[in-house]
């Protein structure tokens, strides 16, 4: 088991394997998303309260889910990087941050677009999820700003990992405090937990979208990781051999 991890974590090995793996993530991901989009837009029957506007959840929910997962990945990667001094783990954080910020942005914008017909406003402070997502976006900005303002890569890795770990504790506190706060102000929520059970024709496309987005995210993360690894290892022997080899190493 350990041997497997060590092999995976060795940069040249990862660089080669990731190239092979990317299509294996991207193709099923795109297929699931294609099915989810078609079934979500045209097959699922309209919600009895929200009408066709509910179809926005097929983008909003996967994006919101990935925005949090990306932060978790960043924090776990940072923790592993700090404890076991694994350089690849730090690279994961660097690659996941812009992706996470993008999905947070998507979740915010789609939530806001949903709010326009439902609440009659583009932004509703009373909604705890949108507010938490906004704070999460700021956390991503802070992480990326810290990373970019430290020139030395090793130092930037460690400093931003500490920030990610502090942030992940905070994300939980943010969530609960915002829920408490909105309950004071009788806010409405986008999708209630334990609400009326979803019909199968609504639910399956959503599950397909979530799974599809996750696969797609994996592929995107792997592609960014390859760039990170290549850049970080630019002075090493294996990169030289790769670049000088006749078939190239793009």
């Amino acid at each position, binding site marked *: 088991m350990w041997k497997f991890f060590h092999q995976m974590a060795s940069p040249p090995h990862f660089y080669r394997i990731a190239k092979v793996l990317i299509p294996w993530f991207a193709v099923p991901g795109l297929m699931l998303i294609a099915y989810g989009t078609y079934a979500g837009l045209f097959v699922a029957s309209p919600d009895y309260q929200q009408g066709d506007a509910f179809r926005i959840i097929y983008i909003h929910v996967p994006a919101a889910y990935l925005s949090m997962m990306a932060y978790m990945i960043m924090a776990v990667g940072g923790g592993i990087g700090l404890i076991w001094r694994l350089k690849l783990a730090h690279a994961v954080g660097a690659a996941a941050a812009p992706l996470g910020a993008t999905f947070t942005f998507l979740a915010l914008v789609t939530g806001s677009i949903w709010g326009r017909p439902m609440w009659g406003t583009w932004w509703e402070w009373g909604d705890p999820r949108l507010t938490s997502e906004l704070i999460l976006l700021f956390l991503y900005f802070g992480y990326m700003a810290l990373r970019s303002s430290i*020139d*030395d890569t*090793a130092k930037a890795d460690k400093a931003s990992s500490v920030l990610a770990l502090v942030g992940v504790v905070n994300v939980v506190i943010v969530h609960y405090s915002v829920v408490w706060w909105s309950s004071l102000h009788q806010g409405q929520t986008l999708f209630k937990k334990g609400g009326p059970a979803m019909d199968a024709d609504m639910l399956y496309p959503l599950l397909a979208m979530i799974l599809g987005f996750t696969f797609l995210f994996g592929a995107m993360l792997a592609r960014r990781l390859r760039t990170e690894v290549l850049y970080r290892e630019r*002075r090493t022997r294996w990169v030289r051999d790769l670049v000088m080899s006749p078939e190239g190493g793009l």
Partner: protein
Amino acid sequence: MTAKLSGKDLTLIRGESCLFKGLGFALNPGELLLLEGRNGSGKTSLMRAIAGMLSLEKGEIYWNDIPVNRQRQEFHGALVWLAHRTGLKGDLNLVENLRFEASLRPQGNVDLAAVCDRLAIARLKRLPLRSLSAGQQRRVALARMLLADVPLWLMDEPFTNLDREGRKLVMELTEEHLLKGGMCVMAAHQDIEINVPVVRVGL
């Protein structure tokens, strides 16, 4: 091979350049480790690495044959570091500065008055450090080093800002410390005249 302080296979990469690679040293009581090299060759970095403030790309520093990372507090209790910047507060006077240092570590039985007399800073005791000259401030830093009464001295360019008399004093103090069985790591680009065994590391 057992040495009190040793380093094995030390490699440090800073940004784009490799400062040293596969470097090793061993130091025993009564010896002086002299780090030699041009400006920017990594003397200060190596010293910071020895003090445990820089993580190395590869290699390990040992104190009593145990890696210092595993016994940071014990190791730090046995060393004092005379750095490029004095690490003293300009707003506080000599006595206040030294009292702060004293409260951070158990003190040996070294007499403050005697140390101040020796370093010729006794009459500056009540002045804020800001108003002293650079050379006088360095003498205060030396006083802190003497008061700590620990076996290992790390001295980064100890002669800067000192006049001839001061330089001579530093060499005398170092020699006494080594003859008592202490150890010293010194980075200097000047010639030193100390009659003790010297281990040289070229960078």
